[in-house]
């Protein structure tokens, strides 16, 4: 009998040892392994400051505020600044850029209205160029949605662990992982209430619980947690456990993204690093620990405020802060960053693009666990302007009275053509909504955006000039499937022989189809690949009118080549990637490849400028800054289902799509829809004119827009200056010959000799 009990006791002991060993291994692995599972952190491009830069002190102060810099005097610690008239004093934070670690430092920036005049470092030394610390725009977190920014103990304000201990676990420094008294107290409270009301968990127990993502409050879990907490305490220092807690604990939800750790929570709630939080902000974070959803300061501000003030009271009672400090903090507001219900600085469509580009070089787990830092091309200010421009235009369409244009969706992509960088991406009208990303996942027929490719193929063949005649005549084609294809013009008219420049700028369908068939579908579809697509579209005649279905980023890729002098640069969203130790890793490089002859691209670009001078984008001209030269093309797909515009200045390419998700007709052309949003944005970003240099073997000549004959600008209103190969023979206009001087022209006009008047009543432009 006694032997049986003894055996049982031994068995029980062995079992207990095994269980403890298993649990111990599990929790130790978690604890040690956790230090290495860090989602990649993603940064926007830094704001570069230099003398001569276009930037006002007001805009600069806004940028600092976006980065979480606090306006205060004196400017005595990193993350603060002071603006006095046209001078801004900043204490810039330290930041590890991919090429060097920039220490925290003082910087004085002087402005003259819209321009930076000087930058001065500490002691007044002239600084030629300076990067601000970039905006953190997110991280690449794993499928289960945990996101965090890990902080080291020196980045944690000392007040935070003190406050956590005072509120959550007063015996933290002395207990062995479990606080039996606290559990007992909680037990009685809960029994009396008949439900679980109070937790007696130590910080260590909370940490263990968080590791295994199991919120079931069964007795078995409780016991397991207690054992694991005990084991953790026996193997690790208190300081390590506190640091793990600070980086581990769940503090909020942002859609699919679970906000873990105080480092990310600080960015999520206050838009600045943890080290810069003040008393009331730390108190709020400690308040949230108890119930991130119940005390959500965005959804439940009053509840959160009450609990924060309770925390402040406890901190004063426990002597962590003085009563006066606590009282002062109690009077403050919550101070949460929030732009009208959206998470500040969250750009899901751009992050999606970054994630996809990174996946080409990195396996998923490396992105979500290896602690990489990703430096991207996003320009936060431009991104915000892009979101505003698109949503403002979509709202205008809502109110326009047209039923079909109500509740439209849209997408927008902005690049800087020379460096091939994608600086803004909008995936839908609710830009902060992490859902269907139209910039990448929506493929639509590009309509007349395809025409410049046809004309490029024509110019490259060497058989056409801007003045060449193409025939705008009806055409019927028997397709391979036996169907009859009968395209028509937008204005339902037939224009007969027209010049190349007119056919493109007015977007004539019949002329384009005839031209495309003369050149051949092979050369035309090859142009798509030359300009940057991975695959040529199928060789159907309808490709000539834009049947190819592309997403806005693909369109941007092709048009970027047109905007970049014919040099193709694979569009980049990522500039650099560094590992957890700061070592540079593989990232896409700036590449340029000549895609088409300089002469053909130059000529096409000049025709695309004419689209704004005489063609379908002419209505936009008055909404753009005086003298800004831009080039582009409208696109409308069949039955007005898609409204496109793709166009560029000297510094920026913008592609806009508008339409319905269910592909219903919008009633909009490229001109009345997408061009409007394009113009709104282009007019507000302080861009430069598109001014390509005339290639060596090309010269400008005056030709008649309607006849293509060489002419003079002094005796006709339809003279247009366009590039030709040097010495290209062009037949002269008999009525207004080339070389006619201003005086001669005036005489001719006086004598009633009006020329080329036959076709000056241009039908409405076809988008």
């Amino acid at each position, binding site marked *: 009998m006694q032997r049986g009990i003894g055996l049982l006791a031994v068995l029980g002991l062995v079992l207990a040892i095994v269980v403890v060993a298993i649990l111990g291994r599990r929790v130790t692995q978690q604890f040690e392994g956790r230090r290495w599972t860090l989602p990649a952190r993603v940064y926007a491009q830094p704001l*570069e400051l*230099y*003398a*001569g*830069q276009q930037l006002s002190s007001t805009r600069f102060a806004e940028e600092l505020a976006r980065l979480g810099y606090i306006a205060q005097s004196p400017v005595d610690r990193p993350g603060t600044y002071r603006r006095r008239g046209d001078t801004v004093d900043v204490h810039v934070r330290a930041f590890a*850029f*991919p*090429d*060097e670690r920039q220490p925290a430092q003082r910087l004085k920036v002087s402005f003259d209205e819209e321009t930076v005049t000087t930058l001065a470092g500490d002691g007044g030394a002239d600084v*030629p*160029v300076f*990067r601000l610390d970039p905006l953190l725009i997110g991280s690449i977190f794993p499928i289960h949605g945990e996101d965090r920014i890990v902080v080291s103990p020196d980045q944690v304000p000392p007040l935070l662990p003190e406050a956590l201990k005072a509120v959550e676990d007063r015996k933290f420094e002395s207990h062995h992982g479990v606080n039996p008294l606290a559990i007992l107290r909680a037990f009685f409270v809960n029994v009396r209430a008949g439900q679980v009301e109070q937790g007696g968990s130590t910080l260590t127990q909370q940490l263990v619980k968080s590791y295994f993502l199991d919120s079931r409050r069964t007795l078995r879990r409780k016991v397991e947690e207690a054992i694991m907490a005990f084991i953790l305490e026996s193997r690790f220092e208190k300081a390590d456990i506190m640091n793990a807690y600070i980086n581990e604990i769940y503090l909020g939800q942002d859609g699919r993204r679970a906000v873990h750790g105080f480092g990310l929570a600080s960015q999520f709630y206050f838009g600045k690093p943890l080290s810069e939080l003040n008393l009331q902000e730390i108190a709020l974070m400690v308040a949230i620990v108890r119930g991130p959803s119940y005390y959500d300061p965005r959804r439940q501000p009053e509840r959160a405020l009450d609990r924060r003030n309770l925390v402040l009271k406890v901190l004063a009672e426990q002597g962590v802060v003085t009563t006066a400090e606590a009282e002062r903090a109690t009077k403050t507001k919550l101070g949460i960053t929030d732009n009208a219900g959206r998470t500040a600085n969250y750009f899901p469509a751009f992050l999606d693009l970054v994630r996809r580009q990174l996946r080409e070089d990195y396996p998923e787990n490396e992105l979500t666990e290896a602690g990489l830092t990703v430096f991207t091309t996003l320009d936060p200010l431009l991104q915000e302007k892009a979101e505003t421009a698109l949503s403002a235009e979509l709202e205008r369409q809502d109110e326009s009275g047209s039923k079909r244009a109500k509740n439209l969706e849209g997408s927008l992509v902005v690049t*800087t053509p*020379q*460096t091939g*960088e994608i600086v803004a991406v909008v995936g839908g009208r609710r830009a902060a909504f992490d859902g269907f990303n139209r910039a990448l996942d929506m493929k639509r027929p590009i309509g007349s955006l395809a025409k410049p490719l046809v004309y490029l193929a024509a110019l490259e063949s060497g058989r056409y000039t801007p003045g060449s005649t193409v025939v705008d005549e009806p055409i019927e084609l028997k397709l391979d499937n036996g169907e009859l294809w009968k395209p028509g013009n937008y204005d339902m008219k037939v224009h007969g022989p027209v010049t190349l420049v007119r056919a493109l700028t007015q977007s004539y369908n019949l002329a384009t189809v005839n031209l495309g068939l003369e050149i051949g579908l092979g050369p035309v579809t090859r142009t798509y690949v030359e300009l940057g697509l991975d695959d040529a579209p199928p060789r159907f005649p309808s490709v000539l009118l834009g049947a190819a279905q592309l997403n806005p980023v693909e369109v941007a890729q092709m048009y970027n080549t047109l905007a970049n*002098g014919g*040099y193709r640069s694979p569009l980049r969203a990522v*500039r*650099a990637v560094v590992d957890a130790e700061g070592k*540079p890793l593989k990232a896409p*490089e*700036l*590449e*340029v*490849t*000549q895609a088409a002859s*300089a002469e053909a691209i130059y000529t096409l670009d*000049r025709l695309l*400028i004419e689209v704004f*001078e005489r063609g379908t984008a002419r209505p936009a001209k008055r909404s753009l800054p005086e*003298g800004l*030269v831009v080039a582009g093309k409208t696109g409308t797909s069949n039955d007005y289902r898609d409204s496109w515009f793709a166009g560029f200045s*000297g*510094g920026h390419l913008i592609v806009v799509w508008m339409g319905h998700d269910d592909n219903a007709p919008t009633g909009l052309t490229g001109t009345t829809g997408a061009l409007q949003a394009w113009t709104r944005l282009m007019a507000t970003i302080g861009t430069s*004119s*598109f*001014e*390509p*240099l*005339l*290639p*060596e073997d090309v*010269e*400008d*000549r*005056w030709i008649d827009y309607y006849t293509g004959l060489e002419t*003079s*600008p002094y005796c006709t209103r339809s003279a247009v*200056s366009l590039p030709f190969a*040097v*010495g290209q023979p062009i037949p*002269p206009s008999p009525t207004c*010959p*080339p*070389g*006619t*001087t*201003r005086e*001669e022209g005036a005489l001719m006009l006086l004598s009633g000799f009006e020329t080329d008047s036959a076709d000056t009543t241009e039908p409405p432009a076809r988008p």
Partner: protein
Amino acid sequence: MRSTARSIVVALVLAVAAGCAAPPFKSGPPAPTAPSPSGRGPTLPTVPPPGSTTEPVIEAPAPAQLPRERPKVAPATLSPASKALVSQAQAQRKRGDLPGATVSLERALRIEPRNPLLWVEMGRLRMDQRNYPQAEAMGRKALSMAIGDSRTQSQAWQLVADALRARGRNVEAQEALERSQELAVN
């Protein structure tokens, strides 16, 4: 009257037109102020030799060809910000920190994306990285941005020549080198 008008050379038409009704792309880039030899970057004189390079070279008109007005432009120069970044990039290249040099040069390119000198610098960096096709492409891109600027074109041709020679394309390299030298004398 018409025949007289027709006989006026195209260049004259263009000249008149440029003054009155030309679209903005007709005007050349604003004349920069300081010259900058390639590969030396920021260690440059900051004051241009006045008038020495801006005068168009007038030669005897070629027979049977229309005289072409291709105004010479002053050599491209770097802004103080780019200059600082280029010298930083050169220091980084010197100590073998090519990723660092890439970061610095790309920063400069974002500030002055159409400065041909920066594309020549970028091409030199690609030479260090043994990416010769890209070095050549960047040299050619610089050429397209330096039309009329013989000093910068000479540097760009030199880069193209080096990139071609590195791939054993000696005949083309020789031609590029000759163009570089011709332009250097101009």
